[in-house]
């Protein structure tokens, strides 16, 4: 039982970081119906940027973290501004956007690899305040901070999406971009905002995970990218609570899989679950079925 609870805690911790990235992914999907394959790259970029700022300039870790958030959000914005917006203006088919994000992810991933090399890098843990024991279950401070950060961000985002003006504009855009534009909503601004948020979330999550494992490496982007898809689809693409729950579920599943089955197959198992879910309920846990318009 002790192992079970320990695994559960670990799973929720890692799952909450997946949830953060998934929220960004699902928000972009919501407003654009675009599968952003570069989302995982932003996550890796965020972690590497703060590592570089911290270790190369010796600046305060929190300042480095903060700057990296701004930079990654900026890259998210550029992704849209430089490429995707132009495609939208040309009314290009959706597939071109999808391929563009794949190209962007190749660019970001390989730039990082060329700049930092392909070996695993140590990542400083600024929250190494030790651990707490509850019964026989051990929770480290990093875990608590990750959970707290994720929870706070989720609350803030839910507030933003459901209670603020920009959130309303986002929801309008996701339902019908053309109508939103006619109602005076600046759709491009909404989309840019969404991309910035997805970049910021990815960056925060990347840093949290970096601290948690105390290493970063150049495969982390591709790996989180796929877990993001899994989380978002599990929960129902384009649905905010879906991404949160989906992320947690994927985190828990793979932690248990690693603990009880085999750590080698850890990544594969959540993907197999994903395929099974698609088989049974293609719209995901929280998604609603759409009617095909003729």
């Amino acid at each position, binding site marked *: 039982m002790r192992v079970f609870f320990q695994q559960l805690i670990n799973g929720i911790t890692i799952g909450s970081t997946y949830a953060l990235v998934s929220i960004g992914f699902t928000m972009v999907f919501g407003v654009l119906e675009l599968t952003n394959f570069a989302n995982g790259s932003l996550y890796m970029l965020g972690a590497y940027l703060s590592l570089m700022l911290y270790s190369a300039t010796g600046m305060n870790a929190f300042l480095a973290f903060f700057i990296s958030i701004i930079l990654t959000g900026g890259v998210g914005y550029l992704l849209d501004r430089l490429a995707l917006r132009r*495609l939208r203006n040309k009314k290009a088919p959706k597939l071109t956007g999808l391929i*563009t994000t794949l190209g962007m992810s190749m660019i970001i991933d390989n730039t990082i690899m060329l700049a930092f090399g392909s070996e695993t890098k140590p990542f400083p843990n600024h929250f190494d305040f030790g651990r707490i024991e509850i019964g026989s279950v051990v929770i480290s401070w990093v875990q608590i901070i990750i959970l707290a950060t994720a929870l706070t961000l989720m609350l803030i985002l839910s507030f933003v999406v459901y209670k603020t003006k920009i959130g309303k504009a986002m929801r309008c855009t996701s339902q019908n971009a053309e109508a939103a534009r006619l109602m005076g909503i600046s759709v491009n601004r909404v989309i840019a905002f969404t991309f910035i948020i997805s970049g910021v979330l990815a960056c925060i999550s990347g840093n949290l995970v970096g601290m948690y494992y105390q290493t970063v490496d150049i495969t982390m982007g591709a790996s989180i990218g796929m877990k993001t898809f899994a989380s978002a689809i599990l929960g129902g693409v384009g649905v905010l609570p879906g991404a949160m729950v989906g992320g947690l579920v994927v985190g828990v599943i793979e932690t248990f899989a690693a603990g009880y089955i*085999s750590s080698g197959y850890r990544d594969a198992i959540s993907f197999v679950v994903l395929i099974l879910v698609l088989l049974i309920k293609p719209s995901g846990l929280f998604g609603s079925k759409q009617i095909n318009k003729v």
Partner: protein
Amino acid sequence: MEKFCEKLVRYRVPLLILACVVAVAFPFVFPSKYFIRIGTVCLMYVMITLSLNLMVGYMGQMSFGHAAFMGIGAYTAAILTTTYDVPFFVAFILAGVVAGLFGLLLGLPVLKLKGYYFTIITMVFCEIVRVVELNWMSLTRGPLGIMAIPKPSFLGFEITTPRQFYFMILVLVALSTLVVSNLMKSRVGYAILAIRDDELAAEAMGIHVFRYKMIVFILSSLLVGLAGAFYATYTSYIDPSSFAAAQSNDMLVMVIFGGLGNTVGSFIGAISLSILPEALRDLAQYRQLIYGVLLVLLMMVKPQGLLGDINFKYIRQRMEHREKSKEAANE
């Protein structure tokens, strides 16, 4: 461009003969091992690109995980020939069959879903396959890879020299080209193109969309599985890292660059992009970066790829039609 394409169409027969002559003469004109290796690799990528183009270009189902099926083919051939001493020819055929079977298994649940689900799942599937190859030690020897994969032999004829390998892949490419171009001329091909253009209208015309998607997915996996088997025996060593997401991306870039749904485009895409890193050796480490930039630029400027908008059959029909009506007017 239009004029140029008409020229190509007009002289298609001599051009085709020329291409065949060049392909056959190449290993004699450039007898060095290095050049023959480049030629062989180019042709292998042509075969891969042809198979992926069938799915991505002709049918419009964007796959980000084609390397998985190549890996399945390669591992099937390697395991059968090393562990079970199956004759190469049988192993080669089985490699295609097994890859096709996996296409069937994956296609059944996924091809009914919306396009982006399919794309995501193909990418994820590639990762699943890689993880399995990496961890199923008893079968695949995991990260160590499989070594000493025997050279192929058909009916007592052994393929050992680089030049023989070159001709083996040349024959495979010729057969694949024939399969793809025949298919696209046929009833099945019309159905496939209709599905690419408008799924709903295709269904209204009585086309069983799912069945044709399945056919293409299986055929495409089968062809790349055969290419994988060739790769295994050609390099005589395979490991999971040869069939990962990065390789899938390379294949996709080749298809899109050459032109979606254009067979000639597949040749151009595969050959030019596999020569590029060889020609610019210093840039070899930037290969993936360059591919990424290329992909983004293509989407902005020419999302269908170089020859994607060009349909040689239609150009020929219009040309002949024009000439006929001109003749009729003269008489």
